C-alpha cells in the first residue's frame, strides 16, 4: 500500500483504476436512474417533482464530503508534507465546486414547485451558497500563487479555516429556527425522511454511490494531470513526455 504513495506509482495505479471505476459508475448511474425515474412511484404530496431528489441530495452530500476531504488532504499535506495529498486537495476543488453548483441549481428547481419560489434566504441555502464561494476562493487562491508548494500549503490553510462552514450547513436547519421565526419551509429532511419508501430510498442510495464513485473517477484523472505538471522535472515524467512526443500524431 505504502508503495503507491509515490507519485510515480500512483500515476500508474490511477491510470489502471480509472477505466474500472468509470464503468462501475456508469452502470450505477444507469441502474439508479432506471429505478428513480421509472420504477419509483410518484410521491403522494409532491407528485413527480420529488424525483429531483435523486440528483439533488447526492450532489448536496458530495458537496460537503468533498470539502471535508479537501481540508483533510490539506492537513495531511501540511503536516506530513505528502505531495499526493496536496494534489488530491487541488484536484478535488473544481469537482466539489461543480457539485455544489449542481446542488444549488437542482435545489432551486425543486424549490419552485414545492415552495413556490426558486430561492429563499434560508440558512441552509445561504450556507450552501457560501460553500460554493469557499470553493471558488480556494481555486482562485491556488491559481494566484505560482509556486506549487506554496500554493498547495496556502490552499490547505484556507480549506481548514473554511471547514467550519460544513457543520453550519448541516445544523443550520436547527439553528435558524432557534433564533428567527421558522422560515417558510422548515427542515428539508423532514419532508422525505419519515415517509420514505424503499422504492425511493434504493434509487437514492444507488445514485449517491454513483456520485461518490464518479467523484473518485474524475479526481483520479485530474490527479494524473496534476502529477505530470508538478513532477515534470523528474526522469520518469520526462520519459513519458518524450515517448509521447515521438508518437506519430505529435508535431515534430
Amino acid at each position: 500500500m505504502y508503495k503507491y504513495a509515490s507519485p510515480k506509482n500512483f500515476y500508474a495505479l490511477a491510470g489502471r483504476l480509472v477505466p474500472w471505476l468509470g464503468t462501475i459508475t456508469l452502470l450505477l448511474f444507469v441502474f439508479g436512474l432506471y429505478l428513480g425515474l421509472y420504477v419509483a412511484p410518484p410521491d403522494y404530496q409532491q407528485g413527480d417533482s420529488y424525483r429531483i431528489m435523486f440528483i439533488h441530495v447526492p450532489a448536496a452530500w458530495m458537496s460537503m464530503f468533498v470539502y471535508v476531504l479537501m481540508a483533510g488532504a490539506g492537513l495531511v499535506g501540511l503536516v506530513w508534507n505528502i505531495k499526493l495529498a496536496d494534489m488530491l486537495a487541488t484536484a478535488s476543488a473544481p469537482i466539489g465546486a461543480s457539485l455544489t453548483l449542481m446542488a444549488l441549481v437542482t435545489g432551486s428547481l425543486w424549490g419552485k414547485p414545492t415552495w413556490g419560489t426558486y430561492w429563499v434566504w434560508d440558512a441552509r441555502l445561504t450556507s450552501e451558497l457560501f460553500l460554493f464561494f469557499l470553493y471558488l476562493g480556494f481555486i482562485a487562491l491556488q491559481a494566484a500563487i505560482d509556486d506549487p508548494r506554496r500554493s498547495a500549503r496556502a490552499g490547505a490553510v484556507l480549506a481548514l479555516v473554511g471547514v467550519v462552514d460544513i457543520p453550519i450547513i448541516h445544523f443550520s436547519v436547527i439553528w435558524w429556527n432557534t433564533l428567527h421565526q421558522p422560515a417558510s419551509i422548515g427542515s428539508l429532511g423532514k419532508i422525505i425522511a419519515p415517509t420514505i419508501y424503499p422504492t425511493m430510498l434504493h434509487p437514492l442510495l444507488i445514485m449517491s454511490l454513483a456520485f461518490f464513485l464518479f467523484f473518485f473517477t474524475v479526481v483520479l484523472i485530474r490527479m494524473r494531470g496534476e502529477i505530470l505538471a508538478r513532477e515534470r522535472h523528474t526522469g520518469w515524467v520526462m520519459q513519458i513526455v518524450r515517448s509521447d512526443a515521438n508518437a506519430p500524431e505529435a508535431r515534430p
Partner: protein
Amino acid sequence: MTWHTFFAMGGYADYVWSAYGFATVVLLWNIASAVHRRRAVMKMLRELALAEQTPKESAAQHYVH
C-alpha cells in the same frame, strides 16, 4: 406507462428535466475538463521539452519578491 407520460413527469417536466439536464451538463463538464487538463499539461510539457533543446541560458536570474 407511455413515453409521453414519462416525459411529462406529472406536469413537472420543466423542473425535473432541467434539473437532470443541468446535472448531466455538470457531470460531462467534469469529465471533459479533467481529460482536457491532462492533455493540456502533456502538450505544455512537450513544448517545454522542445524549448529546452535550444541552447541553455547561462545567464543570471533576478530575484523577484
